[in-house]
């Protein structure tokens, strides 16, 4: 492998890793802050992708507007979903959480089938992000992928800013370490959790909306994303956003270079990495607390 190809593969790895981070950050927030195993997280990713498909004809090239509207809709949906279902789960054990969220996956898939059908659909990238630039003499790199990576980085920075530097972030961090104390201090923990959940759903939907032009929308697209997300969250440390970032990039590299050197065994590589991390550092790479 010559230098040019190696650098391009690194670029591929980083881009994949960043998109993974965007999806996984929502999961780690919900899992880490609220202690809820949310198997339906992949369905929220799918929701975002199908939202992008549904909103595309209305917004045309106003891509950023479409993203904002989609995220807002997803956040409202997440808020209502938490109020209706998840708020009952905090006191329950993990098995019941798994059962409820698994049922939600099935419900969402059927709803998708009824509302949109089972065909594969393409989502066009906005024309101002079309085309690409040449990477040496090798191949073209689409501008849209650069935009996707940049968007993920912006979200990562925004997440860091909110969680570390704002009052809301402080309450989230406090609620994660000691729920009852926070309640005793007069903070409405239920509303706080509702906001965090809505935020997690919005992040997953945003990831789906950004990924839609790259991956197109098709039935069951949430399933494979979900599993990789859990791998990322476990490797990075449950509840740690920095951990999710580091783990996503690691997974991106293992997946990309694994494909080049190990062909179909690359699928094993990611889980091997997770197993090694679990043996060496069971709490994950970063400690809870960002």
């Amino acid at each position, binding site marked *: 492998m010559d230098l040019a190809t190696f650098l391009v593969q690194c670029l591929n790895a980083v881009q994949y890793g960043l998109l993974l981070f965007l999806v996984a950050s929502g999961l780690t927030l919900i899992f880490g802050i609220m202690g809820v195993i949310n198997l339906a997280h992949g369905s929220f990713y799918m929701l975002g992708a199908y939202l992008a498909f549904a909103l595309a004809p209305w917004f045309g090239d106003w891509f950023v507007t479409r993203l904002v509207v989609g995220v807002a809709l997803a956040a409202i949906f997440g808020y209502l979903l938490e109020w209706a279902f998840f708020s009952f789960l905090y006191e329950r054990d993990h098995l019941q959480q798994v059962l409820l969220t698994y049922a939600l996956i099935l419900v969402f898939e059927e709803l998708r089938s009824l509302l949109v059908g089972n065909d594969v659909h393409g989502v066009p990238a906005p024309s101002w992000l079309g085309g690409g630039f040449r990477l040496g003499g090798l191949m073209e790199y*689409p501008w849209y992928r650069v935009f996707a990576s940049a968007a993920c980085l912006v979200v990562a920075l925004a997440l860091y800013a909110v969680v570390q530097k704002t009052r809301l972030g402080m309450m989230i961090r406090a609620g994660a370490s000691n729920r009852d104390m926070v309640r005793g201090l007069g903070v409405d923990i239920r509303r706080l959790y509702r906001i965090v959940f809505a935020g997690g759903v919005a992040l997953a939907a945003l990831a789906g909306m950004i990924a839609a032009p790259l991956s197109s929308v098709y039935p069951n697209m949430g399933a494979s994303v979900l599993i990789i997300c859990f791998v990322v969250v476990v490797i990075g440390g449950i509840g740690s956003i920095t951990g999710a970032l580091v783990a996503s990039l690691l997974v991106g590299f293992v997946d990309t270079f694994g494909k080049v050197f190990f062909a179909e065994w690359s699928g094993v590589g990611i889980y091997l990495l997770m197993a090694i991390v679990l043996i060496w550092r069971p709490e994950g790479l970063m400690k809870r607390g960002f």
Partner: protein
Amino acid sequence: MAKAAKDNNTLLVIPNAGADAITGPMCSPNIVRSSFSNWQPGYAMGVVAGQKGVKRAMTITWAYAAGTESTKGFTEGLEKGGGKVTKDLTLPFPNVEFQALLTEIAAQKPDAVYAFFAGGGAVKFVKDYAAAGLNKTIPLYGPGFLTDGTLEAQGAAAQNMLTTLHYADNLDTPKNNSFRKAYAIAYKAQPDVYAVQGYDAAQILANGLKAVGGDLSKRDQLTAAMRKTPVDSPRGKFTISTAGNPVQDIYLREVKGNNNEFRSVAVKALADPARGCKL
């Protein structure tokens, strides 16, 4: 399912599943297929690629039976024409992150690429291939499944792509025209290769029933008649091999707009080699 039908001597007409094994080691007089074997379109594409002067090709697919059987067919067809496959790229099913392998293809610079994907993976691969600018320098070939039912989603990325399949939407024959018209009136949609296969599965069964006058107890006569009677299909006339697979013309199609249009016959009356079948 083929194994269950074989063990229980149940009559089984297969309208789609392309696994080579069904008319290979699993073949049985009571099992007939009206569709294709994974090997057939792949082999035909390999022959076409060889005729176009492709000397070094790469294949890419998921690591599962349908993918490997299809690419093996392509490799056989290409080698007949004097070319060879330099590398078989695979990724775990149903992984759709192709960037790493597209970069590999760009680095190796083969004369052509043969890809087998279906559904969401097919849409993503064709789009990613075009987004990487590879379709300008390295032609992408594939079986019809790469572009069947996916053209609306693939859009400009798939235009002018050549694929091989045992059917093309605009075959101008009386049978195909009347079939397409009747289908559109009955179901308010355009038929595709899967509709044709289903229709032919029923025709094959009907041929058998006609020969025994509706008497299902004459099983041996029934299955023999199902195999021996040529089928007048919207795809063209085809016969059925001893192993139970269609011996059919494989067409070369080109993507134009939202259709796969017929260009030429890639291989006439192609029979699956039915390796491992003891009939």
